[in-house]
């Protein structure tokens, strides 16, 4: 067994696995399954997701009521939220040597802000404090499939998720399809430029999970498990 560890680009002792994709692409299900498996393998795992915190959601609610939010402030508020999460939930376990499983990362912001017309270079600069992950899985799925999944599970479509603030259409479903279509095109572009691992989300859950496990095995080769950490020192 080789104990040689390829040094990750971020320079921290932990590992950073990122899950990205449209809402309803199945990424959260897959992230949870992978985290469970990693823990069962004896790795120290920390799972975290990026959805709106109280700080941002209360502000956004207020801003929406007053019609004050613009693409720029919307972007900066989310960046504020992400920076706070990064400081608290991502960086400490990464430094402590955990496998950090992130459901959404800075790419979510790149995609969403670009769809709202923000300058992509500007957004990248703002998030430059977030290091490059060891692997980023992009769960690729046709927009229609995510909409069908949403309708089937009777989930309400959120105003911003449908991009209603952009005035693309008065109809929520129509606006959702157009806005999510923009997001998908951005994701497809980033998949290439940011070397994401593209996962075909229309395949069965078990098949996808098997692919993910095969993919992370080499990244974790030689990475210490809980067992070795407890008895080495």
């Amino acid at each position: 067994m080789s104990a040689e560890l390829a040094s990750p680009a971020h320079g921290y002792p932990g590992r950073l696995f990122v899950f990205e994709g449209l809402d309803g692409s199945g990424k959260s299900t897959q992230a949870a399954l992978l985290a469970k498996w990693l823990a069962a393998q004896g790795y120290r795992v920390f799972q975290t997701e990026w959805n709106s915190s109280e700080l941002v959601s209360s502000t956004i609610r207020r801003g929406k009521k007053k019609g004050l939010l613009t693409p720029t402030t919307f972007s900066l508020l989310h960046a504020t939220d992400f920076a706070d999460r990064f400081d608290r939930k991502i960086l400490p376990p990464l430094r402590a040597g955990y496998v950090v499983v992130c459901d959404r990362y800075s790419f979510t912001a790149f995609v969403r802000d670009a769809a709202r017309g923000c300058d992509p270079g500007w957004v990248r600069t703002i998030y430059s404090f977030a290091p490059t992950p060891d692997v980023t899985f992009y769960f690729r799925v046709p927009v229609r499939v995510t909409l069908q999944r949403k309708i089937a599970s009777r989930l309400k479509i959120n105003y911003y998720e449908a991009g209603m603030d952009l005035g693309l259409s008065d109809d929520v479903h129509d606006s959702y399809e157009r806005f999510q279509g923009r997001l998908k095109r951005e994701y497809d572009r980033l998949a290439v430029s940011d070397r994401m691992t593209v996962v075909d989300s229309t395949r069965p859950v078990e098949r996808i999970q098997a692919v993910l496990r095969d993919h992370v095995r080499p990244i974790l080769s030689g990475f210490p498990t809980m067992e070795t950490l407890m008895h080495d020192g």
Partner: protein
Amino acid sequence: MTGRTYGTPLPGLPAEPRGGQLIVIEGADGSGRTTEVSRLKEWLEVQGHAVVDTGLRRSTLVSEEIDRAKQGHTLGATTMALLYAADFGDQLENKIVPALSAGSTVLADRYIYTLMARAIVRGASRDWARRLYGFAFIPDLVVFLDARPEILLHRAIGKYGSLDYWESGMDLSLSRDLFESFFLYQARLAAEFDWMATEYSFHRVDANRRPDQVDADVRALVEPLYRRSSPRRSGAGGPAGLIRPRGRDASG
């Protein structure tokens, strides 16, 4: 107002909000900034210009969150810098731009420069801060009120009776002594303002003097901005811009 930003276009806004002048008064706490802003506002209004004054942390969007974060001292440096940027963005788009488009003069009691200096002394890189605020409009005039740390200290104590935790940079842990921390912090801010003075074409005004002396210098800088756009002084047959009543009165 040229309507140009420092680099990043603002989505969803008119590219060129022509009209009013954007005048920025920058300077440390105790440099006499607030006094000068109110003097200048008064003077401009007497000249016939509509003035909207604005400052930092006055937006309705996130000012509560900022106050809460400051009380708890819980947010990291990057997070705070971004929260301030969101607040500034809100003011720029919802207050400054509409006022300029309507032809008003916007008098800003501090602008992105103070926010950048604070972020940089707390660990942000100059480049990150500069690009973060790339969406800000380039002012027509930036006045920097330059005062020595000793003067700032005396004015702060004279005004509040003590030194402020944040204005002394106590969150930076430069020194456990408030007095010493104040000097160390102000020196670091001054170093950032020095760099920005060139980069952003500040007009320095010696603020170690009396308010009326400072004011005279600031007026001399402001006056040329209005040479071509001053309100009409006279017109044939009465005060310009006033419409004389007609109709009923004329017949009677």
